[in-house]
């Protein structure tokens, strides 16, 4: 698994991870992880969305297209959505989308949905550490590699 | 004892015990709860504080380490999960593992013999305490 990657040094593969975080729970959870100085890899870059239900499958596919090695969507725990129902819709959409990506032969480990509340700074950091290590273990997006726009 | 050596000893004990004495908030509940309190010169809370300060030598040379019953009452009741008994055990182990220190010599045996004592215990005592 010695893969060169533009973001990393010669031997260490550093994956590109896009994390969509809902503004009310998970983004706040990520802030809390910061406030508590809980470390997780810098490979994770967070995009703030109002709610997990704002994440269009298109964004997930586009992230992979542009070179992401993993995409994670974080929202409020089911039942805790700031907008009452958003994460329920997101849950169905992402379940179906991930199942479809799996059906097309893309590694399951590259996509994830996790519910992180505003109080769960530690969970956020743990989740990101775990996700990064899963994606790192999968290595560069070989199977998706030829799915990428590498121009 | 040089400061360097004391420090190395301290690190060794922390490594063996996996105890962080800095977690202690000095409430004394360990010593309050210790059933062997009266037998000891240094008490559980003092172990924690002395290891933190690096005063391990005194602990190594003291009989207190053999007075601890390993009843773990201090571990159970410590509100900060400092686990003093593990620290005492680590000091004890450090003492026992000291190279060349012969804690049990053959001529000490007759005085300690007891007709009820299983032979196996004598053999294992030699194995453990005699170098």
């Amino acid at each position, binding site marked *: 698994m010695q893969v060169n990657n533009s973001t990393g040094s010669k031997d260490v593969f550093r994956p590109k991870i896009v994390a969509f975080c809902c503004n009310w729970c998970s983004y706040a959870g990520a802030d809390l992880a910061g406030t508590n100085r809980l470390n997780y890899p810098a490979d994770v870059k967070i995009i703030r969305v109002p709610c997990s239900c704002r994440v269009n*499958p*298109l964004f997930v*596919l*586009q992230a*992979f*297209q542009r070179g992401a090695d993993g995409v994670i969507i974080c929202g409020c725990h*089911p*039942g805790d959505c700031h907008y009452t*129902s958003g994460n*329920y*819709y997101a*849950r*169905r*959409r*992402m*379940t*179906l*989308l*991930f*199942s*479809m*990506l*799996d*059906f*097309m*032969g*893309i*590694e*399951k*480990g590259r996509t*994830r*949905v996790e519910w992180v509340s505003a109080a769960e700074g530690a969970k956020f950091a743990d989740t990101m550490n775990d996700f990064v290590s899963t994606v790192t273990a999968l290595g560069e997006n070989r*199977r*998706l590699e*030829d*799915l*990428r*726009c590498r121009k | 004892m040089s400061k360097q050596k004391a420090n190395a000893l301290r690190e060794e004990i922390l490594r063996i015990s996996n105890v962080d004495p800095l977690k202690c908030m000095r409430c004394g509940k360990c010593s309050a709860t210790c059933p062997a309190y009266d037998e000891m010169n240094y008490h559980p809370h003092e172990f924690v504080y002395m290891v933190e300060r690096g005063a391990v030598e005194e602990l190594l040379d003291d009989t207190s380490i053999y007075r601890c019953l390993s009843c773990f009452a201090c571990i159970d009741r410590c509100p900060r999960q400092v686990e003093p008994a593990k620290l005492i055990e680590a000091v004890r182990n450090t003492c026992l593992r000291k190279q060349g220190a012969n804690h049990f010599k053959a001529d000490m045996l007759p005085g300690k013999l007891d007709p009820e004592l299983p032979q196996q215990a004598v053999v294992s005592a030699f194995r453990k305490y005699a170098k």
Partner: protein
Amino acid sequence: MQKVMLERAKALLSDGTVRAVLAWEKGDFAYDTTPAVFNSAERLEKGFVYSPFCGANLSKYLIKETQKEGKILVFLKPCDTYSFNQLVSEHRIKRENVYVVGVECKGMLDIEKIREKGVTSLISASWEGEQVRLVTADGEILADSSELMQERCLCCKSKKHVAYDELLGEEGEVLDSNRFDEVARLEAMSAKERFEFWRGELSRCIRCNACRNVCPACSCEKCIFDNPDSGVQNKAAADPFEENLFHVIRAFHVAGRCTDCGECSRVCPEHIPLHLLNRKFIKDINELYGEFQAGETELPREPLTEYKADDVEPGVVYERGAE
């Protein structure tokens, strides 16, 4: 059957019930029938056809036709009626402007399969019980229909019309079809095999958009793949991802709305089994959220605009299937 339909169409046209008839028109060959709007008895007389090659689902054309004044007659096969209901539920078809005549369907033929049998110069085809009579320039052949039918018809989900104003021919029933078998076969493969499979299929895509254009669920005023502002506007199949992106997004857009009519695969010039993508969504929906058939009723109900508090977590994906 064709005769009964023709008579009925002419009658409804002449008594003014309908202003026009949406049906199939003869082509140059027996197998290239095309959807057409007939506005006179003469044109009907001349061009109308209903044969085992009338696979086209006419419901999509109603979006445009029902915008016009007056009623239009449409002939719908059982599977077409599901698409019809779905479009009505989405307010795409004005129900009051349609007169639906349900027609029985014994399964549509696949010209490729006929050709593979070595049949040439086909003049016409007709059902005869479980068999098909093929009339060619060289004479007549009686063949087993199951050998010549389109794949989608071999695993037909329903012979029942779920919407109609009147019915011609026999009414059938919802069938216990084995249409998910192929999806299940793929699911049982390793991820790598699936990846290879889809690479092999999708790399043939030429982005002709036939699948989208024929799909009754793909009825957007303006498709995002045609919209320069969407950022994914139609491009040539520049790289493999482009093909996957297009097909996954398309399948996702119709997920929960696709009635599994199979038109996408029928029209694909590269014979890509696109219906398998849609069926994968349908199968997942059935398994995860309960049995659901889009277009079964006119009620606006679909799995992706609903939820249950105890729905499965997305992690279920990782627990299922191989690898």
